[in-house]
């Protein structure tokens, strides 16, 4: 049994585009696992529902949100436990790192207090012990002069340093699962790699599992063991990292990979942008949400509800696509095919 098993998670918010009572669906029937000690990537475009998924697991969605499904963590359904019990789980067993380190720390409380607060809340450590522990944590995440930094306020730290402090706070009580929601998106490019490497090292050395949310496939390639690809609130493909990068089957995933510069691509190969824009609200009744942007779309994609099924022989590779990319070992052929298809469409 996996450490975190999310099953059939659906999330809607009141007041969609329709009438007053209408609900707008942000996430629809999402399932994925995070194995103990592993890093699971959750990838998707802006608005695909990655953040609301993670907030639902933490029980941190606004009260207006309607949530169904289950998220069993260590055998306990986090979506069903009472708020009071959940408070004891948060920070101690599951912790979270957010996207924007500039706003995710309390501006009027010192960094040290923000760490010791969590330690004392969950471990009952004395003020002194918590203080010492906090210093060690800051040192571990690579903040120079940690003891001095404890007394400083967040604005006295740079963005990268703040994100390191956030990581220290999240890992303070050695949680079993760390959820990181685009932890490096707001950082300078030069710092992104350092922070990612730090996170990878930390979870590996502590045996912490991590759910890494990102829209950056480069991040996934570097850190994740498994990858779940979301599009418009649904899981469209799921596989181990190597499998996904070697054989993307869903048209969206393959498009996503083709649009990212790759070091192993032959010189002169053009990048392939995915045409169109993602839809921010889920407005279809059945079928593939990617159809309006997909060059292979036909009636089979639009009419019926497509299930998330395993890909033939590979039962760890799941996908939801009526016309998957042919399972070819040479991806470049596939690209050319794709290219021709696109050109035909455009000239038509």
């Amino acid at each position, binding site marked *: 049994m996996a450490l975190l098993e999310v099953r059939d998670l659906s999330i809607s918010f009141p007041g969609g585009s329709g009438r007053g009572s209408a609900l707008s669906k942000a996430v629809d029937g999402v399932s994925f696992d995070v194995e103990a000690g592993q890093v699971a990537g959750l990838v998707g475009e802006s608005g695909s529902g990655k953040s609301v998924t993670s907030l639902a697991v933490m029980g941190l969605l606004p009260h207006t949100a309607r949530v169904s499904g289950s998220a069993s963590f260590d055998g306990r359904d986090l979506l069903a436990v009472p708020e009071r019990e959940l408070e004891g789980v948060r920070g101690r067993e599951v912790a979270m790192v957010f996207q924007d380190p500039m706003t995710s720390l309390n501006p009027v409380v010192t960094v040290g207090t923000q760490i010791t607060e969590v330690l004392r809340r969950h471990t009952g450590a004395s003020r002194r012990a918590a203080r010492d522990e906090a210093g060690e944590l800051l040192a571990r995440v690579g903040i120079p002069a940690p003891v001095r930094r404890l007394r400083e*306020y967040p604005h006295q730290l740079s963005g990268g340093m703040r994100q390191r402090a956030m990581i220290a706070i999240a890992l303070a009580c050695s949680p079993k699962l760390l959820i990181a929601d685009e932890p490096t998106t707001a950082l300078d490019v030069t710092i992104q790699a350092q922070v990612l490497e730090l996170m990878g090292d930390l979870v590996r050395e502590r045996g912490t599992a991590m759910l890494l949310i990102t829209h950056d496939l480069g991040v996934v390639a570097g850190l994740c063991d498994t990858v779940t690809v979301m599009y418009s609130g649904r899981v469209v493909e799921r596989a181990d990292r190597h499998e996904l990068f070697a054989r993307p089957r869903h048209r969206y995933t393959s498009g996503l990979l083709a649009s990212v510069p790759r070091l192993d691509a032959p010189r002169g190969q053009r990048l392939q942008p*995915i045409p169109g824009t993602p839809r921010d609200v889920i407005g279809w009744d059945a079928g593939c949400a990617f159809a309006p942007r997909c060059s292979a779309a036909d009636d089979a994609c639009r009419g019926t509800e497509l299930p998330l099924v395993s890909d033939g022989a590979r039962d760890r590779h799941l996908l939801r696509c009526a016309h998957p990319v042919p399972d070819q070992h040479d991806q470049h052929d596939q690209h050319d095919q794709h290219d021709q298809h696109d050109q035909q469409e455009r000239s038509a």
Partner: protein
Amino acid sequence: MTQVSDALGPAAPTTPDPDAVGSGGLWHSAWRRLRRNPAAIAGAAIVALFLLVAVFAPLIAPGQPGVPLPNSGVTPSSVPGPSPGHPLGLDSPGTDLLTQLVYGARQSLLIGVVSTALGLAGGAVLGVLAGGLGGWVDVVVMRVVDILLSIPSLLLAVSVAAVLGQRPVSVMIAIAVAQVPIFARLLRGSMLAQRGSDYVLAVHSLGVRRRTVVMSHLLPNSLGPVIVQATLTLATAIIEVAALSYLGLGDSNPSTAEWGRMLVNAQSRLSTDPHLALWPGFCIAVTALGFTLFGEALREALDPKGRK
């Protein structure tokens, strides 16, 4: 032509803006901005002068307050003008005018500060309950606040004076009760605004207890507007103290010097000796102006929108 390459999501590499900092830096930069604002300096100077006079009244005043001088020379139609021992002359009851003004500052400060503190405390409790807990607590508390708001403050002052007698404490309570809804609403609003911020979500994600989140995270971040309001409220409180005693609802003890009552006493001599009314009127106006200037400057300095 929407060939948008969105596969990488939104480009959001925000370079850290040195000024885009939170309240820790907010207070610091507010202080810098205050020092550069002439209105703030003028306000602060007036407030400082008022505080000094109030605190050191016995050292500054030439005499004792409320003690009519023997053979004062006050007649029904005139009061003695300035003389060596009495730089501003005498007041209509035959007391030294400067002494009355100086001790009046003390009385205004005392009642103003105590009533504002009471109003702030009451408003803070209600505001924290409403803004921190939300839900039905919020609804109930805000209805109570609405009821408080609907009582005219003058009526309230009359009732309090009737129940407790004409004592300084009645004045304080009357003024404080009128302030409670203002502070409660302000703090509630400012806490509600804070509740949506990222750091609150982050502390919740760490399992910090709700009470702790409210008291040590939301509250300290919500105090800025409340401090500004308290400064402004001091100005109104000082005017109200005077107004209430002008209406005969203030302290009835004739030996306490009070600017409002000095105005009352000066009324009958307005045509012959207008300075008896002008001096306390001037003191009330300038003190209130000082607090208002300072409060407004503080509001501007703390307003994140105005920060460059």
